Protein backbone atom coordinates (compact mmCIF):
# COMPACT_ATOMS: atom_id res chain seq x y z
CA UNK A 1 0.00 0.00 0.00
CA UNK A 2 1.19 3.48 -0.85
CA UNK A 3 1.21 5.31 2.47
CA UNK A 4 1.23 9.03 3.13
CA UNK A 5 5.00 9.23 3.36
CA UNK A 6 5.34 7.52 0.00
CA UNK A 7 2.82 9.91 -1.51
CA UNK A 8 4.61 12.90 -0.05
CA UNK A 9 7.93 11.71 -1.44
CA UNK A 10 6.38 10.92 -4.79
CA UNK A 11 4.94 14.38 -5.26
CA UNK A 12 8.07 16.06 -3.93
CA UNK A 13 10.03 14.22 -6.61
CA UNK A 14 7.41 14.89 -9.25
CA UNK A 15 7.25 18.64 -8.76
CA UNK A 16 10.98 19.13 -8.21
CA UNK A 17 11.61 17.28 -11.46
CA UNK A 18 9.30 19.65 -13.31
CA UNK A 19 10.42 22.82 -11.52
CA UNK A 20 14.00 21.93 -12.39
CA UNK A 21 12.91 21.26 -15.99
CA UNK A 22 14.36 17.74 -15.98
CA UNK A 23 11.72 16.85 -18.54
CA UNK A 24 13.39 13.62 -19.65
CA UNK A 25 12.79 12.21 -16.17
CA UNK A 26 9.13 13.17 -16.16
CA UNK A 27 7.50 10.33 -18.15
CA UNK A 28 8.93 7.76 -15.72
CA UNK A 29 6.50 9.07 -13.10
CA UNK A 30 3.72 7.47 -15.14
CA UNK A 31 2.80 3.92 -15.97
CA UNK A 32 3.22 2.66 -19.49
CA UNK A 33 -0.53 2.75 -20.08
CA UNK A 34 -1.24 5.99 -18.22
CA UNK A 35 -3.84 8.61 -18.96
CA UNK A 36 -2.66 12.23 -18.63
CA UNK A 37 -4.69 15.28 -19.38
CA UNK A 38 -4.57 18.98 -18.72
CA UNK A 39 -8.11 20.10 -19.34
CA UNK A 40 -10.13 23.31 -18.92
CA UNK A 41 -12.65 23.03 -16.11
CA UNK A 42 -15.27 24.12 -18.62
CA UNK A 43 -14.68 21.01 -20.73
CA UNK A 44 -14.29 18.71 -17.76
CA UNK A 45 -17.60 19.74 -16.22
CA UNK A 46 -19.42 19.59 -19.54
CA UNK A 47 -18.13 16.09 -20.15
CA UNK A 48 -16.18 17.20 -23.21
CA UNK A 49 -13.11 15.11 -23.90
CA UNK A 50 -11.03 17.84 -25.50
CA UNK A 51 -7.93 18.56 -23.47
CA UNK A 52 -5.23 21.20 -23.77
CA UNK A 53 -2.68 18.41 -23.31
CA UNK A 54 -3.73 14.80 -23.77
CA UNK A 55 -1.77 11.57 -23.53
CA UNK A 56 -2.84 7.94 -23.50
CA UNK A 57 0.52 6.38 -22.72
CA UNK A 58 3.94 7.05 -21.33
CA UNK A 59 5.09 7.09 -24.92
CA UNK A 60 2.94 10.10 -25.64
CA UNK A 61 4.50 11.84 -22.64
CA UNK A 62 7.91 11.05 -24.09
CA UNK A 63 6.70 12.57 -27.36
CA UNK A 64 5.45 15.63 -25.48
CA UNK A 65 8.90 16.07 -24.00
CA UNK A 66 10.40 15.59 -27.43
CA UNK A 67 8.14 18.36 -28.69
CA UNK A 68 9.04 20.76 -25.92
CA UNK A 69 12.76 20.04 -26.21
CA UNK A 70 13.24 19.32 -29.92
CA UNK A 71 10.45 20.67 -32.12
CA UNK A 72 8.65 23.57 -30.44
CA UNK A 73 9.67 27.23 -30.60
CA UNK A 74 8.84 29.48 -27.65
CA UNK A 75 10.18 32.32 -25.56
CA UNK A 76 12.21 31.28 -22.51
CA UNK A 77 10.28 31.15 -19.25
CA UNK A 78 10.26 29.73 -15.75
CA UNK A 79 7.37 27.74 -14.29
CA UNK A 80 7.10 27.13 -10.56
CA UNK A 81 4.49 24.83 -9.05
CA UNK A 82 2.74 25.32 -5.75
CA UNK A 83 0.73 22.19 -4.88
CA UNK A 84 -1.86 22.41 -2.11
CA UNK A 85 -2.55 19.85 0.62
CA UNK A 86 -2.90 16.29 -0.61
CA UNK A 87 -6.21 14.53 -0.12
CA UNK A 88 -6.42 10.74 -0.24
CA UNK A 89 -9.76 10.23 -1.93
CA UNK A 90 -9.98 6.44 -1.97
CA UNK A 91 -8.06 3.22 -2.24
CA UNK A 92 -8.80 0.35 -4.55
CA UNK A 93 -6.54 -2.65 -4.06
CA UNK A 94 -3.02 -1.25 -4.13
CA UNK A 95 -3.97 1.83 -6.11
CA UNK A 96 -4.74 5.11 -4.44
CA UNK A 97 -6.79 8.02 -5.73
CA UNK A 98 -5.62 11.46 -4.62
CA UNK A 99 -6.58 15.06 -5.15
CA UNK A 100 -4.82 18.38 -4.61
CA UNK A 101 -4.90 21.92 -5.88
CA UNK A 102 -2.09 23.27 -7.99
CA UNK A 103 -1.01 26.84 -8.62
CA UNK A 104 1.48 27.30 -11.45
CA UNK A 105 3.33 30.61 -11.54
CA UNK A 106 5.24 31.64 -14.63
CA UNK A 107 7.92 34.26 -15.16
CA UNK A 108 9.00 35.53 -18.55
CA UNK A 109 12.06 37.65 -19.24
CA UNK A 110 11.67 41.21 -17.97
CA UNK A 111 8.13 40.51 -16.76
CA UNK A 112 6.59 40.17 -13.36
CA UNK A 113 5.64 36.70 -12.15
CA UNK A 114 2.04 35.75 -12.95
CA UNK A 115 -0.39 32.91 -12.46
CA UNK A 116 -0.56 30.67 -15.51
CA UNK A 117 -2.74 27.89 -14.05
CA UNK A 118 -5.04 27.61 -11.06
CA UNK A 119 -6.03 23.97 -11.07
CA UNK A 120 -7.05 20.83 -9.22
CA UNK A 121 -5.31 17.49 -9.87
CA UNK A 122 -7.18 14.18 -9.77
CA UNK A 123 -4.58 11.40 -9.68
CA UNK A 124 -4.42 7.64 -9.41
CA UNK A 125 -1.15 6.10 -8.21
CA UNK A 126 -0.12 2.48 -8.33
CA UNK A 127 3.00 0.50 -7.44
CA UNK A 128 4.64 -0.37 -10.74
CA UNK A 129 7.78 -2.46 -10.96
CA UNK A 130 9.55 -1.24 -7.88
CA UNK A 131 8.26 2.29 -7.61
CA UNK A 132 5.04 4.24 -7.47
CA UNK A 133 3.65 5.67 -10.66
CA UNK A 134 0.70 7.67 -11.91
CA UNK A 135 -1.75 5.54 -13.80
CA UNK A 136 -3.98 8.56 -14.27
CA UNK A 137 -3.55 12.29 -13.80
CA UNK A 138 -6.23 14.79 -14.72
CA UNK A 139 -5.26 18.43 -14.20
CA UNK A 140 -8.46 20.47 -14.33
CA UNK A 141 -7.67 24.16 -14.60
CA UNK A 142 -10.00 27.07 -13.82
CA UNK A 143 -7.95 29.48 -15.86
CA UNK A 144 -10.32 30.74 -18.52
CA UNK A 145 -7.80 32.63 -20.58
CA UNK A 146 -4.28 31.23 -20.75
CA UNK A 147 -1.62 33.95 -21.03
CA UNK A 148 -0.65 32.93 -24.56
CA UNK A 149 1.02 29.51 -24.52
CA UNK A 150 1.18 26.58 -22.14
CA UNK A 151 4.65 25.15 -22.71
CA UNK A 152 5.66 22.93 -19.82
CA UNK A 153 3.52 20.16 -18.29
CA UNK A 154 1.76 20.43 -14.94
Amino acid sequence: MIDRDALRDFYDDYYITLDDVRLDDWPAFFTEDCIYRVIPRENYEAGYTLSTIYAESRGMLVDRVMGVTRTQMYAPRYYRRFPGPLRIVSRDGDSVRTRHNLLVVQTLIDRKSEIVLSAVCHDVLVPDDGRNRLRERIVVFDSEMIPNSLIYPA
Partner: protein
Amino acid sequence: MNKIDRIWPSDAVGKVPYWVYSDPEVYAAELERIWYGPHWLYCALEAEIPEVGDFKTTTLGERPVVVVRSAPDEVSVLENRCAHRGVKFCQARKGHVKDLLCPYHQWNYSLRGDLQGVAFRRGVRGQGGMPADFDPKTISLRKLRVEVANGVVWATFSDETPPFRAYLGERFWQHYTRVYDGRKLAILGYNRQHIPGNWKLMQENIKDPYHASLLHVFFVTFGLFRADQKSATEIDPTGRHGILISRAGRQEINDVTSGMRTFRSDITLSDPRIMDVVREFPGEDTVGMITVFPSVVLQQNQNSLSIRHIVPTGPDGFDFHWTHWCYADDTPEMRLRRTRQANLFGPAGFVSADDSEIIEMGQQGFAHSPDEAGIVLMGGREIESVDHMVTEVGIRGMYRYWREAMGL
Protein backbone atom coordinates in the same frame (compact mmCIF):
# COMPACT_ATOMS: atom_id res chain seq x y z
CA MET B 1 -13.37 59.31 -35.12
CA ASN B 2 -10.06 61.11 -35.50
CA LYS B 3 -8.61 61.21 -38.97
CA ILE B 4 -5.78 58.76 -39.58
CA ASP B 5 -2.66 60.41 -40.96
CA ARG B 6 -0.64 57.41 -42.01
CA ILE B 7 1.01 56.86 -45.38
CA TRP B 8 1.22 53.48 -47.05
CA PRO B 9 4.66 52.54 -48.43
CA SER B 10 5.37 53.15 -52.10
CA ASP B 11 5.81 49.43 -52.73
CA ALA B 12 2.08 49.14 -52.11
CA VAL B 13 1.83 45.39 -52.58
CA GLY B 14 5.20 44.23 -51.34
CA LYS B 15 5.25 46.02 -48.02
CA VAL B 16 3.01 46.26 -44.96
CA PRO B 17 3.75 49.16 -42.59
CA TYR B 18 3.95 48.26 -38.93
CA TRP B 19 1.54 51.00 -37.85
CA VAL B 20 -1.30 48.74 -38.98
CA TYR B 21 -0.56 46.62 -35.90
CA SER B 22 -0.15 49.26 -33.22
CA ASP B 23 -1.86 52.56 -33.99
CA PRO B 24 -4.89 53.01 -31.69
CA GLU B 25 -6.64 55.21 -34.26
CA VAL B 26 -6.23 52.55 -36.90
CA TYR B 27 -7.59 49.98 -34.48
CA ALA B 28 -10.62 52.14 -33.66
CA ALA B 29 -11.29 52.52 -37.37
CA GLU B 30 -10.97 48.76 -37.87
CA LEU B 31 -13.69 48.17 -35.31
CA GLU B 32 -16.04 50.53 -37.13
CA ARG B 33 -15.23 49.73 -40.72
CA ILE B 34 -14.33 46.06 -40.51
CA TRP B 35 -15.74 44.40 -37.40
CA TYR B 36 -18.96 46.43 -37.30
CA GLY B 37 -18.93 46.90 -41.08
CA PRO B 38 -20.08 44.74 -44.01
CA HIS B 39 -18.54 41.48 -42.85
CA TRP B 40 -19.89 38.22 -41.52
CA LEU B 41 -18.58 37.36 -38.07
CA TYR B 42 -18.44 33.91 -36.54
CA CYS B 43 -20.85 33.40 -33.62
CA ALA B 44 -21.39 29.77 -32.76
CA LEU B 45 -22.07 26.25 -33.90
CA GLU B 46 -25.73 25.29 -33.98
CA ALA B 47 -24.70 22.24 -31.98
CA GLU B 48 -24.07 24.55 -29.01
CA ILE B 49 -27.70 25.65 -28.90
CA PRO B 50 -29.84 22.74 -30.09
CA GLU B 51 -33.08 23.53 -28.23
CA VAL B 52 -35.26 26.61 -28.39
CA GLY B 53 -34.13 28.77 -25.47
CA ASP B 54 -30.58 27.51 -25.52
CA PHE B 55 -28.15 30.40 -25.62
CA LYS B 56 -24.45 31.10 -25.76
CA THR B 57 -22.67 34.37 -25.11
CA THR B 58 -19.73 35.54 -27.16
CA THR B 59 -18.04 38.71 -28.35
CA LEU B 60 -18.04 40.16 -31.87
CA GLY B 61 -15.29 42.69 -32.30
CA GLU B 62 -15.44 44.15 -28.81
CA ARG B 63 -19.20 43.93 -28.42
CA PRO B 64 -20.82 41.25 -26.27
CA VAL B 65 -23.71 39.37 -27.86
CA VAL B 66 -26.14 36.61 -27.00
CA VAL B 67 -26.61 33.84 -29.55
CA VAL B 68 -29.93 32.16 -28.86
CA ARG B 69 -32.16 29.65 -30.60
CA SER B 70 -35.34 31.69 -30.86
CA ALA B 71 -37.31 29.09 -32.82
CA PRO B 72 -36.73 25.52 -33.95
CA ASP B 73 -35.26 26.81 -37.21
CA GLU B 74 -34.16 30.24 -36.09
CA VAL B 75 -31.12 31.61 -34.30
CA SER B 76 -31.09 35.19 -33.06
CA VAL B 77 -27.93 37.14 -32.37
CA LEU B 78 -28.59 40.07 -30.04
CA GLU B 79 -26.31 42.62 -28.47
CA ASN B 80 -25.83 41.71 -24.83
CA ARG B 81 -26.78 45.21 -23.80
CA CYS B 82 -30.07 45.97 -22.15
CA ALA B 83 -32.14 48.58 -23.98
CA HIS B 84 -32.91 50.28 -20.68
CA ARG B 85 -29.54 51.28 -19.27
CA GLY B 86 -27.07 49.13 -21.12
CA VAL B 87 -26.32 46.29 -18.73
CA LYS B 88 -24.61 43.19 -20.13
CA PHE B 89 -27.52 41.27 -18.74
CA CYS B 90 -26.45 37.77 -19.74
CA GLN B 91 -23.26 36.68 -17.96
CA ALA B 92 -23.22 32.91 -18.37
CA ARG B 93 -21.27 31.30 -21.20
CA LYS B 94 -24.15 29.01 -22.01
CA GLY B 95 -27.58 28.18 -20.70
CA HIS B 96 -31.25 27.72 -21.33
CA VAL B 97 -33.91 30.38 -20.80
CA LYS B 98 -37.57 31.06 -21.55
CA ASP B 99 -36.96 34.73 -22.13
CA LEU B 100 -34.15 37.21 -21.73
CA LEU B 101 -34.31 39.03 -18.43
CA CYS B 102 -32.10 41.89 -17.30
CA PRO B 103 -31.46 41.65 -13.58
CA TYR B 104 -31.19 45.38 -12.94
CA HIS B 105 -34.84 46.35 -13.46
CA GLN B 106 -36.17 43.16 -14.95
CA TRP B 107 -36.86 44.44 -18.38
CA ASN B 108 -37.80 41.38 -20.26
CA TYR B 109 -37.16 40.42 -23.87
CA SER B 110 -38.37 37.66 -26.12
CA LEU B 111 -35.80 35.26 -27.52
CA ARG B 112 -35.89 37.44 -30.63
CA GLY B 113 -34.88 40.45 -28.54
CA ASP B 114 -38.22 42.24 -28.55
CA LEU B 115 -39.06 44.09 -25.38
CA GLN B 116 -42.03 42.30 -23.89
CA GLY B 117 -42.02 43.38 -20.29
CA VAL B 118 -41.14 46.58 -18.45
CA ALA B 119 -41.40 46.28 -14.70
CA PHE B 120 -43.71 48.87 -13.15
CA ARG B 121 -44.50 50.27 -16.59
CA ARG B 122 -47.92 51.24 -15.29
CA GLY B 123 -46.47 52.32 -11.95
CA VAL B 124 -47.30 50.92 -8.53
CA ARG B 125 -50.61 51.71 -6.93
CA GLY B 126 -51.04 54.59 -9.32
CA GLN B 127 -47.62 56.09 -8.75
CA GLY B 128 -44.75 56.35 -11.18
CA GLY B 129 -44.52 54.26 -14.30
CA MET B 130 -43.49 55.07 -17.84
CA PRO B 131 -44.86 58.13 -19.69
CA ALA B 132 -47.63 57.83 -22.25
CA ASP B 133 -45.29 58.24 -25.19
CA PHE B 134 -43.22 55.26 -24.11
CA ASP B 135 -43.85 52.52 -26.66
CA PRO B 136 -42.20 49.16 -25.88
CA LYS B 137 -42.88 48.03 -29.43
CA THR B 138 -40.30 50.55 -30.66
CA ILE B 139 -37.70 49.14 -28.30
CA SER B 140 -35.64 45.98 -28.52
CA LEU B 141 -32.17 44.64 -28.01
CA ARG B 142 -30.03 45.43 -31.02
CA LYS B 143 -30.60 42.57 -33.46
CA LEU B 144 -27.88 41.48 -35.82
CA ARG B 145 -28.46 39.94 -39.24
CA VAL B 146 -27.95 36.21 -38.95
CA GLU B 147 -27.25 33.35 -41.31
CA VAL B 148 -26.84 29.74 -40.41
CA ALA B 149 -24.69 27.91 -42.92
CA ASN B 150 -24.47 24.14 -42.49
CA GLY B 151 -24.39 24.24 -38.74
CA VAL B 152 -22.38 27.42 -38.29
CA VAL B 153 -23.98 30.64 -37.08
CA TRP B 154 -22.78 33.89 -38.65
CA ALA B 155 -23.87 37.44 -37.92
CA THR B 156 -23.19 40.94 -39.18
CA PHE B 157 -23.82 44.44 -37.82
CA SER B 158 -24.25 45.89 -41.29
CA ASP B 159 -27.17 45.92 -43.72
CA GLU B 160 -24.83 46.11 -46.69
CA THR B 161 -23.20 42.76 -46.09
CA PRO B 162 -24.00 40.43 -49.01
CA PRO B 163 -25.54 37.02 -48.25
CA PHE B 164 -23.04 34.67 -46.60
CA ARG B 165 -22.56 32.47 -49.66
CA ALA B 166 -21.87 35.52 -51.81
CA TYR B 167 -19.60 36.88 -49.05
CA LEU B 168 -17.46 33.75 -49.34
CA GLY B 169 -17.73 33.58 -53.09
CA GLU B 170 -18.56 30.39 -54.99
CA ARG B 171 -15.09 28.93 -54.87
CA PHE B 172 -14.79 29.37 -51.13
CA TRP B 173 -18.34 28.16 -50.64
CA GLN B 174 -17.08 24.93 -52.17
CA HIS B 175 -14.13 24.84 -49.79
CA TYR B 176 -16.45 25.63 -46.90
CA THR B 177 -18.96 22.92 -47.74
CA ARG B 178 -16.25 20.32 -48.20
CA VAL B 179 -16.13 20.08 -44.38
CA TYR B 180 -19.33 21.86 -43.38
CA ASP B 181 -21.30 19.61 -45.65
CA GLY B 182 -24.61 19.73 -43.85
CA ARG B 183 -24.01 16.83 -41.53
CA LYS B 184 -24.89 17.43 -37.89
CA LEU B 185 -21.95 18.59 -35.78
CA ALA B 186 -21.09 17.98 -32.13
CA ILE B 187 -18.78 19.74 -29.68
CA LEU B 188 -15.52 18.14 -28.57
CA GLY B 189 -14.52 21.05 -26.34
CA TYR B 190 -12.83 24.43 -26.03
CA ASN B 191 -9.48 26.06 -25.58
CA ARG B 192 -9.07 29.75 -24.80
CA GLN B 193 -5.93 31.85 -24.81
CA HIS B 194 -5.00 35.49 -24.90
CA ILE B 195 -2.39 36.25 -27.56
CA PRO B 196 -0.57 39.54 -27.05
CA GLY B 197 -0.36 40.55 -30.70
CA ASN B 198 -2.52 42.40 -33.20
CA TRP B 199 -5.49 40.34 -34.42
CA LYS B 200 -4.40 40.53 -38.07
CA LEU B 201 -1.23 38.61 -37.24
CA MET B 202 -3.38 35.54 -36.70
CA GLN B 203 -5.10 36.00 -40.05
CA GLU B 204 -1.67 36.45 -41.67
CA ASN B 205 -0.31 33.40 -39.94
CA ILE B 206 -2.93 31.12 -41.47
CA LYS B 207 -2.68 32.84 -44.84
CA ASP B 208 1.07 32.22 -44.81
CA PRO B 209 2.07 28.71 -45.88
CA TYR B 210 5.63 29.97 -46.32
CA HIS B 211 6.26 29.74 -42.58
CA ALA B 212 4.78 26.29 -42.10
CA SER B 213 7.69 24.50 -43.69
CA LEU B 214 10.18 26.50 -41.72
CA LEU B 215 8.82 27.25 -38.28
CA HIS B 216 7.02 24.02 -37.52
CA VAL B 217 9.58 21.29 -36.97
CA PHE B 218 6.77 18.91 -36.10
CA PHE B 219 4.93 19.49 -39.37
CA VAL B 220 8.08 19.35 -41.38
CA THR B 221 9.60 16.32 -39.75
CA PHE B 222 6.50 14.18 -39.92
CA GLY B 223 5.44 15.48 -43.30
CA LEU B 224 2.07 16.83 -42.24
CA PHE B 225 2.60 20.13 -44.02
CA ARG B 226 5.77 20.74 -45.98
CA ALA B 227 6.93 22.68 -49.01
CA ASP B 228 7.73 19.59 -51.03
CA GLN B 229 4.16 18.38 -50.87
CA LYS B 230 1.35 18.96 -53.30
CA SER B 231 -0.46 22.01 -52.11
CA ALA B 232 -2.26 25.20 -53.03
CA THR B 233 -2.72 28.67 -51.68
CA GLU B 234 -6.00 30.17 -52.75
CA ILE B 235 -7.66 33.50 -52.12
CA ASP B 236 -11.13 34.77 -52.98
CA PRO B 237 -11.54 37.49 -55.63
CA THR B 238 -11.50 40.24 -52.98
CA GLY B 239 -8.36 38.84 -51.36
CA ARG B 240 -9.85 38.85 -47.87
CA HIS B 241 -10.41 35.11 -47.52
CA GLY B 242 -7.83 32.42 -48.01
CA ILE B 243 -7.23 28.70 -47.83
CA LEU B 244 -4.13 26.60 -47.49
CA ILE B 245 -4.47 23.19 -49.02
CA SER B 246 -1.92 20.43 -48.67
CA ARG B 247 -1.41 16.74 -49.01
CA ALA B 248 0.55 14.94 -46.29
CA GLY B 249 3.88 13.34 -47.17
CA ARG B 250 6.29 11.18 -45.21
CA GLN B 251 9.35 11.68 -43.01
CA GLU B 252 11.66 11.35 -45.97
CA ILE B 253 14.93 12.92 -46.94
CA ASN B 254 14.64 14.41 -50.40
CA ASP B 255 15.90 17.32 -52.47
CA VAL B 256 13.80 19.75 -50.43
CA THR B 257 13.89 18.36 -46.90
CA SER B 258 17.63 17.81 -47.07
CA GLY B 259 18.00 21.60 -47.21
CA MET B 260 15.64 22.30 -44.32
CA ARG B 261 17.09 23.29 -40.99
CA THR B 262 13.85 22.25 -39.37
CA PHE B 263 13.74 18.76 -40.82
CA ARG B 264 14.87 16.29 -38.17
CA SER B 265 15.46 12.87 -39.62
CA ASP B 266 16.43 11.53 -36.20
CA ILE B 267 13.17 12.30 -34.41
CA THR B 268 10.66 9.50 -34.00
CA LEU B 269 7.41 9.22 -32.09
CA SER B 270 7.34 6.79 -29.18
CA ASP B 271 3.60 6.47 -29.57
CA PRO B 272 2.69 7.23 -33.18
CA ARG B 273 -1.07 7.09 -32.62
CA ILE B 274 -1.17 10.86 -32.94
CA MET B 275 -0.30 10.27 -36.60
CA ASP B 276 -3.02 7.69 -37.07
CA VAL B 277 -4.89 9.71 -39.69
CA VAL B 278 -7.83 8.40 -41.70
CA ARG B 279 -9.08 9.86 -44.91
CA GLU B 280 -12.59 11.21 -44.51
CA PHE B 281 -13.02 13.94 -47.11
CA PRO B 282 -13.27 13.71 -50.88
CA GLY B 283 -9.98 14.12 -52.69
CA GLU B 284 -6.40 13.60 -51.62
CA ASP B 285 -5.96 16.73 -49.60
CA THR B 286 -5.19 16.25 -45.93
CA VAL B 287 -5.13 19.87 -44.84
CA GLY B 288 -7.58 22.68 -45.56
CA MET B 289 -7.11 25.78 -43.48
CA ILE B 290 -9.64 28.49 -44.33
CA THR B 291 -9.44 32.08 -43.10
CA VAL B 292 -12.78 33.84 -43.23
CA PHE B 293 -12.06 37.52 -42.86
CA PRO B 294 -11.93 38.98 -40.28
CA SER B 295 -13.07 36.85 -37.40
CA VAL B 296 -12.21 33.22 -37.83
CA VAL B 297 -10.00 30.34 -38.92
CA LEU B 298 -11.73 27.14 -40.03
CA GLN B 299 -9.35 24.30 -39.37
CA GLN B 300 -9.34 20.93 -41.08
CA ASN B 301 -5.95 19.45 -40.42
CA GLN B 302 -5.80 15.68 -40.82
CA ASN B 303 -8.81 14.60 -38.72
CA SER B 304 -8.69 17.54 -36.38
CA LEU B 305 -11.52 20.01 -36.90
CA SER B 306 -11.81 23.30 -35.14
CA ILE B 307 -13.07 26.84 -35.42
CA ARG B 308 -10.66 29.43 -34.08
CA HIS B 309 -12.44 32.62 -33.13
CA ILE B 310 -10.59 35.96 -32.97
CA VAL B 311 -11.83 38.50 -30.43
CA PRO B 312 -9.72 41.67 -30.59
CA THR B 313 -9.07 43.40 -27.27
CA GLY B 314 -7.00 46.34 -28.50
CA PRO B 315 -4.34 47.00 -31.13
CA ASP B 316 -1.89 44.76 -29.33
CA GLY B 317 -3.83 41.67 -28.37
CA PHE B 318 -6.77 39.35 -28.94
CA ASP B 319 -8.54 36.53 -27.20
CA PHE B 320 -8.45 33.33 -29.23
CA HIS B 321 -11.27 30.85 -28.67
CA TRP B 322 -10.91 27.35 -30.06
CA THR B 323 -14.00 25.22 -30.59
CA HIS B 324 -13.03 21.66 -31.48
CA TRP B 325 -15.87 19.71 -33.02
CA CYS B 326 -16.73 16.41 -34.62
CA TYR B 327 -19.60 15.01 -36.62
CA ALA B 328 -22.56 13.98 -34.49
CA ASP B 329 -22.44 10.48 -35.96
CA ASP B 330 -18.72 9.98 -35.43
CA THR B 331 -17.73 6.64 -33.96
CA PRO B 332 -16.09 6.70 -30.53
CA GLU B 333 -12.86 5.80 -32.30
CA MET B 334 -13.15 8.85 -34.53
CA ARG B 335 -13.87 11.16 -31.59
CA LEU B 336 -10.84 9.75 -29.80
CA ARG B 337 -8.74 10.26 -32.93
CA ARG B 338 -9.77 13.89 -33.18
CA THR B 339 -9.19 14.44 -29.46
CA ARG B 340 -5.75 12.90 -29.80
CA GLN B 341 -4.78 14.93 -32.84
CA ALA B 342 -5.84 18.07 -30.97
CA ASN B 343 -2.45 17.82 -29.25
CA LEU B 344 -1.07 19.56 -32.32
CA PHE B 345 -3.26 22.59 -31.76
CA GLY B 346 -4.30 25.09 -29.12
CA PRO B 347 -2.21 26.92 -26.49
CA ALA B 348 -0.12 23.80 -25.86
CA GLY B 349 -0.23 22.48 -29.42
CA PHE B 350 2.91 20.93 -30.88
CA VAL B 351 2.37 23.23 -33.83
CA SER B 352 0.00 26.02 -32.76
CA ALA B 353 2.07 27.09 -29.76
CA ASP B 354 4.80 28.00 -32.26
CA ASP B 355 2.34 30.34 -33.93
CA SER B 356 0.98 31.99 -30.80
CA GLU B 357 4.54 32.54 -29.63
CA ILE B 358 5.69 33.94 -32.96
CA ILE B 359 2.77 36.35 -33.01
CA GLU B 360 3.76 37.72 -29.62
CA MET B 361 7.36 37.97 -30.82
CA GLY B 362 6.16 39.88 -33.88
CA GLN B 363 4.30 42.45 -31.82
CA GLN B 364 7.35 42.82 -29.57
CA GLY B 365 9.53 43.34 -32.61
CA PHE B 366 7.70 46.09 -34.47
CA ALA B 367 5.47 47.73 -31.85
CA HIS B 368 8.05 50.47 -31.35
CA SER B 369 8.87 50.98 -35.04
CA PRO B 370 5.49 51.91 -36.54
CA ASP B 371 7.07 53.66 -39.52
CA GLU B 372 9.07 50.66 -40.66
CA ALA B 373 7.46 48.04 -42.88
CA GLY B 374 7.41 44.31 -43.35
CA ILE B 375 8.14 42.60 -46.67
CA VAL B 376 5.62 40.24 -48.29
CA LEU B 377 7.27 39.50 -51.62
CA MET B 378 7.45 35.71 -51.45
CA GLY B 379 5.89 34.49 -54.68
CA GLY B 380 6.27 37.93 -56.24
CA ARG B 381 3.71 40.71 -56.26
CA GLU B 382 0.91 38.73 -57.85
CA ILE B 383 -2.36 38.54 -56.00
CA GLU B 384 -3.99 35.35 -57.26
CA SER B 385 -4.34 31.76 -56.21
CA VAL B 386 -1.40 29.45 -56.81
CA ASP B 387 -0.86 25.71 -56.56
CA HIS B 388 2.02 25.77 -54.14
CA MET B 389 2.91 27.09 -50.69
CA VAL B 390 6.02 29.13 -51.39
CA THR B 391 4.12 32.40 -51.34
CA GLU B 392 2.80 35.26 -49.28
CA VAL B 393 -0.05 35.96 -51.68
CA GLY B 394 -2.66 35.46 -48.96
CA ILE B 395 -1.20 38.34 -46.97
CA ARG B 396 -0.90 40.58 -50.02
CA GLY B 397 -4.51 39.83 -50.81
CA MET B 398 -5.70 40.61 -47.31
CA TYR B 399 -4.02 44.00 -47.22
CA ARG B 400 -5.21 44.96 -50.67
CA TYR B 401 -8.74 44.35 -49.34
CA TRP B 402 -8.01 45.89 -45.94
CA ARG B 403 -6.93 49.17 -47.54
CA GLU B 404 -10.14 49.29 -49.55
CA ALA B 405 -12.26 48.55 -46.51
CA MET B 406 -10.38 51.06 -44.38
CA GLY B 407 -10.14 53.73 -47.06
CA LEU B 408 -6.41 53.96 -46.47
